[in-house]
């Protein structure tokens, strides 16, 4: 009797567990608007306060809740104001000497709490982004802006220290406008801990709805937005740190969108009728960086990599095309320079070192590196030609690259040893220049302004301490000339210079296709952020599922 009761209860429980998730609320949405997009992500953002936000998850959410004064165009052109689209600013006027720009704010622009957007908000935003109380990566990018003043409640004027081709870009791209009326009573040093970071109020076509720590963040369409409501009702970022669990959610239909797919998942997506892939050309590139200074005595050149012939040989010994195919298949391209093709003004203008193993061997011979003891490793004065390659444990693609590089270097008598380090240990070693070589990756911002930081001799992120006055000068010229043709010419020469100097072997540019449910009709993804056109994504009315019909009503 007891057993049958247990069975009955178990049956009831099983039935309810299986049956309940399928029951949905009655249909509410139809037509062009409506729908729920569930994005599965591996990590939760630290904060949604734009200046402090870091990581791709935070960037996507902040990018659709907040607005800039103007948005860079799809061509990612950073010269002047060409290609920029109006956002919070309805118009702008340059001063005759080009040392100031007056932005007129859209009179219909409102914060999500209903307050109008004012020039005070813009001035306050600049104060926050340049405050000494906050340590922000963007601060150095705003160096050329002297101040922001308020001409009238709807006009904010940016004053610049000197004329630069990217003044407009500097004033708009690096800052999301913040609501002064909600924040200016909080001391700058306390902004980091202000509740606003977990309950943001923006001006974008989506508004913040809720953040359940460790579980999800939800945004909903701002129906009163002057630029039109977002077509989707809501987007939910669902947090699943385990990548396997993330993919299970996607393939089981619990989530609709997965960024950062791994190559091994592509075939599985192709076999899943409900999913499709969208090409996503990111701006990232990967490289094998050499330490050009002695890791123990920075005043001395590196005993191996200080010699240009060795670096060139190590470049020419790598079949970059084959490596890309092996690791990324069709989802990668050989990198040409320290920038992705999308940002290189003229890729045809500079020559690449060829893949030539015989020439690589000859170069090493001429540099005095020969295998004197027939152990398969070249040596000179008793020192073997051997080095370690640091790789962060989080990157499986870089680990695969390291193994393949090891094999290619073995063929020319060079012993390269992959050294996988936990991410923090890897960063520590790279920051402190305590390495022979490392596999690194960068995602430059449009305009290539970040190149100064990463590869110029004074660049703080120049881990390998590449130091070329010629490259520095060409970089400066390319970034400061107002003549687009001359700029292209400077860029080509700068890239040629750094390619000839071989401070690194440029390995790959990665394409990162995303998987999405077929019912979504999307815009082309932009390389600097897939989320840029998210407010215009919509659901095919014929393919709606239960969660697309919830509507925008208040939760019961």
């Amino acid at each position, binding site marked *: 009797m007891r057993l049958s009761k247990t069975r009955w209860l178990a049956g009831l429980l099983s039935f309810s*567990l299986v049956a309940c998730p399928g029951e949905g609320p009655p249909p509410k949405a139809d037509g062009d608007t409506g729908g729920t997009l569930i994005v599965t992500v591996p990590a939760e953002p630290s904060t949604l306060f734009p200046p402090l936000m870091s*990581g791709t998850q935070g960037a996507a959410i902040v990018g659709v809740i907040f607005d800039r004064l103007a948005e860079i165009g799809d061509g990612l052109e950073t010269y002047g104001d060409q290609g920029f689209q109006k956002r919070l600013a309805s118009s702008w006027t340059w001063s005759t000497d080009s040392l100031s720009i007056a932005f007129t704010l859209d009179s219909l622009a409102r914060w999500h709490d209903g307050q109008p957007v004012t020039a005070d908000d813009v001035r306050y935003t600049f104060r926050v982004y340049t405050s000494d109380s906050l340590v922000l990566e963007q601060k150095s990018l705003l160096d050329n802006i002297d101040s922001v003043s308020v001409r009238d409640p709807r006009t904010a004027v940016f004053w610049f220290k000197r004329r630069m081709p990217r003044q407009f870009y500097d004033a708009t791209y690096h800052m999301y406008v913040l609501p002064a009326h909600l924040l200016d009573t909080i001391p700058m040093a306390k902004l980091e801990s202000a509740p606003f*970071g977990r309950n943001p109020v923006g001006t974008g076509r989506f508004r913040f709805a809720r953040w359940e720590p460790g579980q999800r963040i939800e945004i909903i369409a701002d129906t009163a937005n002057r630029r039109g409501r977002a077509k989707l009702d809501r987007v939910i970022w669902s947090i699943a740190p385990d990548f396997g669990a993330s993919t299970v959610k996607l393939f089981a239909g619990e989530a609709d969108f997965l960024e950062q797919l791994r190559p091994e998942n592509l075939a599985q997506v192709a076999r899943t009728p409900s999913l499709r892939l969208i090409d996503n050309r990111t701006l990232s590139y990967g490289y094998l960086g050499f330490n050009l200074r002695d890791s123990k005595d920075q005043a001395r050149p590196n005993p191996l990599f200080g010699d240009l012939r060795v670096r060139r040989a190590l470049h020419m010994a790598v079949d970059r095309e084959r490596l890309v195919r092996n690791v990324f298949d069709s989802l990668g391209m050989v990198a040409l320079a320290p920038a992705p093709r999308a940002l290189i003004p003229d890729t045809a203008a500079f020559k690449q070192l060829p893949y030539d193993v015989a020439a690589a061997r000859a170069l090493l011979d001429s540099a005095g590196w020969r295998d004197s003891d027939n152990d398969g490793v070249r040596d000179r004065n008793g020192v073997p030609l051997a080095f370690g390659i640091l790789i962060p444990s989080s990157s499986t693609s870089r680990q695969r690259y390291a193994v393949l590089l090891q094999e290619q270097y073995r063929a020319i008598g060079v012993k390269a040893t992959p050294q996988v380090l936990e991410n*923090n240990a890897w960063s520590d070693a790279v920051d402190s220049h305590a390495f022979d070589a490392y596999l690194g990756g960068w995602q430059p911002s449009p305009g290539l302004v970040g190149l100064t930081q990463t590869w110029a001799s004074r660049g703080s992120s120049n881990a390998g301490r590449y130091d070329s006055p010629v490259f520095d000068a060409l970089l400066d010229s390319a970034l400061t000339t107002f003549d687009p043709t001359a700029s292209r010419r400077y860029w080509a020469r700068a890239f040629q210079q750094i390619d000839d100097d071989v401070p690194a072997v440029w390995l790959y540019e990665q394409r990162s296709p995303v998987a999405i449910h077929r019912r979504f009709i999307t815009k082309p993804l932009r390389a600097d952020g897939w989320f840029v056109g998210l407010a215009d994504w919509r659901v095919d009315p014929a393919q709606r599922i239960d969660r697309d019909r919830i509507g925008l009503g208040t939760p019961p």
Partner: protein
Amino acid sequence: MVLRLLQSVAVVFTAATLAFVLLHLAPGDAATALGEGVSPEVRAALRAQWGLDESLATQYGRWLSSFLRGDLGFSRDQHRPVAAVLGDALPRSLFLMGCALSVSLIGGMLIGAWQGARAGSRRDRTTSTALLVLYSLPEFWLALVLLVVFSYHLGWLPATGITSETYDYMSPFDKLCDRLSHLVLPLVSLSLVGVSVFARYQRDAMQESMTQAFVRTARAKGLTEAGVRRQAWRNALLPVITVTGLMLPALITGAVFVERVFSWPGMGFAMIRAIEARDYQVVSAGVILGSAVTTFGAALADIARDIADPRLRSQ
């Protein structure tokens, strides 16, 4: 009792200090953990602002002084007080572990008592082998298998989280079902190994109890077999109570992996994130809580054992 309390405080304090020191000795810090895109200049400025460039002793002293004043500190990774981080995570973990402990205890005791009463029989040997296999399975592996089978292939149960993404828009009954369905896989993953442990102890204790003189006496007096087993089972409870206290650390460890696999946002989930982000304050506070729960659990087990066994009480 006072001595016991002091011992517990010392254990908790030592554990937290060790966690603080060891995490600081590991490469990197909260500034390094911000990732590749952050320049060394910004990292250095953050270290200065957060006091990470001070000596370990100074940092420890500051942390200890704050802790003694009841301030658990500020999470650099989550930009909010540590108390808020733990306030979100702890109840979820306690709920999951409480459910898992209950299921393990009840399931293990039932199976073990059943086996012990039939010790040596074919059914006993078969179930013992099955439980041994279960015991040797790591929780995270079991969790992954359950996830793939029941979420991916069969699609019966949700893969991650405490609730569905559209939970807020469900009716109260649907909400209840939704919560239950999300609990099933983590609970099964976490409790199956516990069932095998408890069953093993209960079986042995039951087997021994069944050979005691009072059992023979009870049978001789004509007590029914069910009544005899009930008497023997009560006598076989002591080892299980002891094991319950000892199981807590294992349960906490198992929960860390299970929470990770099923994205159950509890203490394990929060601690792994904090360790990766070198969020010292969260890790230290988490260790204090974990060790407090463990010592508290052990103390509770002692008290329960005292109540169950009058001989121990008299000591």
